[in-house]
């Protein structure tokens, strides 16, 4: 379990996995570069033991190298992410992120994830770049989607959008839903959310935060959420542990995308 210390989720997943009899190692993200790991095309080992499952609960753009010199951090982080990208997608490992290395590098960029979800059943809100949506009219009626944040902000001015060609959408403030192992955690969520959960899972995202507009259309995805709500964390931990030990409820999601299916 690779943990983000801000979220209680890692500890809860570890407890659930131990209930299944698993030998669980919890690693702080900042210590990941120093974890003893060996990988070949056939096997992955951690601390000398075979590694079967990984719960990846961290933002890939954060640092993995707390104990390294500042001048080495950029290189060490890049090497560590490269290694763990291979582990997360290794045929012998079942992991909570199998959405491709490009997704690890693009992070929360909605234009990227929007392309990944295009052509599926999940309705997607239109996305505008570079001020066309707001135009010279009323920029406060639209929302700015910073490429790297997966959350909306009101547009300060049309100049902001023109400055960066920023993405934006028009409509009501967004609604957040966490999807885990193909299921929305919010029992009151909109119609169609079950499809969205399955499609995120089929895309290789076992846990993700989805933002939808008032019409139920997706406007952003956070593939690396750090939930803090205790009830949601408990439910997420149960579903993630079930997924990692091979629960059968998710298998049918991968019929269209077998490359992203877990081993």
């Amino acid at each position, binding site marked *: 379990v690779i943990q983000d210390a801000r979220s209680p989720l890692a500890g809860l997943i570890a407890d659930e996995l131990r209930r299944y009899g698993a030998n669980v190692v919890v690693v702080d993200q900042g210590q990941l570069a120093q974890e003893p790991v060996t990988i070949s095309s056939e096997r992955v080992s951690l601390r000398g033991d075979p590694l079967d499952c990984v719960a990846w609960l961290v933002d890939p753009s954060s640092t993995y190298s707390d104990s390294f010199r500042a001048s080495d951090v950029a290189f060490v982080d890049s090497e560590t992410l*490269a290694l763990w*990208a291979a582990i997360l997608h290794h045929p012998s490992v079942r992991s909570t992120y199998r959405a491709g290395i490009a997704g690890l590098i693009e992070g929360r960029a909605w234009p990227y994830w929007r392309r990944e979800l295009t052509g599926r059943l999940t309705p*997607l809100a*239109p996305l505008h770049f570079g001020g066309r949506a707001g135009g010279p009219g009323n920029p406060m009626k639209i929302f700015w989607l910073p490429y790297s944040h997966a959350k909306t902000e009101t547009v300060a001015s049309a100049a902001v959008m023109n400055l*960066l060609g920023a993405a934006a959408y028009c409509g009501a403030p967004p609604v957040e839903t966490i999807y885990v192992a193909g299921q929305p955690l919010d029992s009151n969520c909109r119609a169609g959310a079950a499809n969205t959960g399955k499609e995120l899972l089929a895309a290789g995202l076992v846990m993700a935060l989805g933002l939808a507009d008032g019409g139920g259309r997706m406007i952003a995805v956070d593939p690396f959420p750090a939930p803090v709500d205790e009830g949601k964390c408990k439910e997420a931990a149960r579903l993630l542990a079930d997924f990692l030990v091979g629960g059968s409820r998710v298998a049918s999601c991968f019929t269209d995308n077998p490359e992203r299916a877990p081993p």
Partner: protein
Amino acid sequence: LILVFVGDGDDLTLVYLSRCAAAAGFDVIVLDEAHFSVDWRFEASSEISADGLIHFGGRSIPFRSIAGAYVRFSPTPGGLVFDQLGGSAGGLYARERRHAIHALLWCLPCPIVNPPSCGMSNASKPLQMRLLQEAGFRVPRWIATNDPKEAKDFSANCPAGAVVKAMSGYRAEVQLIDEALVSRLRNGSPPVIVQERIEGFDVRLHIVAQRGFATSIRHSRGIDYRWSGEGAVYECFQAPDDLVRRSDAFTRREGLILSGLDFKVDAGGEWYCLECNPVPTFLPYEAATGQAISTAILDVFSST
């Protein structure tokens, strides 16, 4: 025909290809990342992305009028706004700017050499080597580890020795494994790739939309000709047809139009694939051998 050259306006390969394009009669527009939002910008909508516009130099250029885009980003793009912001704000600006340009490229309804986020397996060598193996290439045996004992044991089982490589896309010299490396691992170095050394000569195979351009590189000093190849001899080489086909299939599977695959050819004529580079600088190979790689790239744009 309008061609846009996107990314690092000072990159040698980008400058070279843009001049070739201008000489061939294309209307060349260089969209320098460092000048984005200052000298040029774009507007588009996902609903009708092909109807977007690029605003550049007093012109409003419809996406539909663009025949192709050639892309080479700088790993450390600067620019006036970036410099003024500095610190974490500058970092955020740079990330937003890069994502914005990616969004632009995804909207363009023309061939992109190469599309953003494609070929990213090269950023994780262990992942890419497994994909290359699955695609039917012979890949030298390897492990990735930070365990000094694993590294030494693996190396001991390689008759010609083992080399050490970086894991990510960082440009780093390939070297023979030695006691100094093992000592670094013992002291807490991040993992490295340890790979069976193949004795022989190097071949760079460029794939451009199904066409293959192979260059052999023979050198007598060091392991990595990119670093210690002074005096290396570059020559046109005939790659086996099935290897070119396999390389082209891998290139397309990665979503690329242009790629540079690196091989070692041993004394028995066996080809070992080392990696597939999604942003190859073909310039030294074209300059040394006269192979028309740049012309092949421009052909991709003029044939659409």
